[in-house]
């Protein structure tokens, strides 16, 4: 079981405020979200999902939480431990775009500040350098590779300033 991520570990003894209309409306606007009611809980998504045996809340459970309008879904480990492998989406007999929905949930969770710390580090790297890694020049020299083509970081910073990447989280 994943210990490191996700506040909601189990449904045991939990009380949820069901049918939060606002939340249901929000998630049904996500890409794929219009099909939430088509889910008949066959759990085929979870059967093929490679993290099913590693998470506390599986993907078919996540789908039902969405339909019931449980905001706590953003606290499940499934949201951030989804590898975006699209296996569930390809196998869902109802053709629900499950992985796309999870991407949308990650966007919602991020705005609320529910994001593993490593992601926030990557965000800074993209803003600062336009890339996630710095070159190791000696190695490229050894292979007689030319320098990596130039990037004007001022340009990527400007456009990231415009999209607001660095202040997307509530309160930032």
């Amino acid at each position: 079981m994943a210990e490191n991520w996700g506040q909601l570990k189990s449904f045991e003894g939990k009380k949820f405020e069901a049918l939060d209309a606002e939340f249901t409306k929000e998630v049904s606007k996500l890409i794929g979200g219009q099909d939430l009611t088509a889910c008949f809980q066959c759990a085929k998504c979870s059967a093929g999902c490679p993290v099913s045996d590693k998470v506390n809340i599986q993907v078919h459970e996540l789908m039902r939480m969405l339909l019931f309008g449980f905001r706590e879904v953003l606290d499940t480990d499934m949201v951030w431990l989804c590898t975006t492998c699209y296996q569930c989406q390809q196998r869902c007999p109802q053709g629900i775009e499950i992985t796309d929905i999870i991407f949308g949930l990650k966007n919602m969770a991020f705005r609320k500040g529910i994001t593993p710390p490593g992601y926030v580090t990557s965000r800074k790297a993209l803003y600062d350098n336009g890339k996630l890694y710095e070159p190791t020049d000696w190695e490229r020299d050894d292979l007689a590779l030319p320098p990596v083509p130039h990037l004007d970081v001022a340009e990527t910073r400007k456009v990231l300033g415009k999209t607001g990447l660095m202040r997307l989280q509530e309160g930032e």
Partner: protein
Amino acid sequence: MSKRPAYYHFLGCIIPHRYPSIEKATKLVFNDLGIDLLDMVGASCCPAPGVFGSFDRVTWATIAARNLTIAEQGGHPITTGCNGCFASLWDSNHELKEDEELRAAVNRNLADIGREFKGTIEVTHYLDVLHDVVGTQKVKEHVTRPLNGVRMALHPGCHWMRPKLVKKKDDSERPHIFREICETSGAKYVHYKDELICCGAGGAVRTADLKTSLDFTKQKFDSIAAAGGADVIVTPCPFCLLQLDTGQVEIQKLFGVEYKFDIMHVSELLALAFGHEPDEFGLANHLQYSQRKTEPNWERLNLRAKAKATA
């Protein structure tokens, strides 16, 4: 003679900065095949789909579209050897062509830096070029050193072919294209049960929870061992390669289990099969070797004679 095909070479972050051997091998192979790779001046991170797609779709699409506009200005398609870069560039290109609302939002952002997404180019993966443009038959004709007797397990990864209905590349539940390309090398394909599961790094789960992500990687290795083992694992993605390569060192540290698989990008496999020496593109520079102070298992890879000569 028809004109040589030319592609903007989108390097991404991992290939040039962590595994330049892949970049070098690709340049050798594409040159052998008569295909021009053009530098993409001004390219940034794709941006990593698992990370930046998770923050905000419009930001993700804007940064990807900025990269696309560089190729649009030059009028050539893009090719990339990374499933992650492919996911960001191909998906955004596809979505921006279909979704007018997204396109308007992205172009509003790009206007500030004097750019505009027009939707005039295509994004390819090396696999598309090798399979659809060159053709596996012609790839085979360039093989001068078949890797006969080498047992090869494949890790196709996810984002070149999934989601199937959108990508329309291969039957991603029973894929064959990547296998056909790798088999031109003469190595023997070894099937294993978990061939199609994620490497463990996808969606940046590597970033969210390293232990969970290594759990997958270990599952893959065990599945290969159960199928009789393999001498090499081949993948079309440097992020998968990083996970499978350095993952062995991390698994040993975290779980105390030792695996010794040589991992190659498909470009490196083909460079060897095309007769290039491992030293020519730096195969021995892979991170697991420098971290463990080891080198590729030359004998198992049938490259023994050369290894001695260069020792």
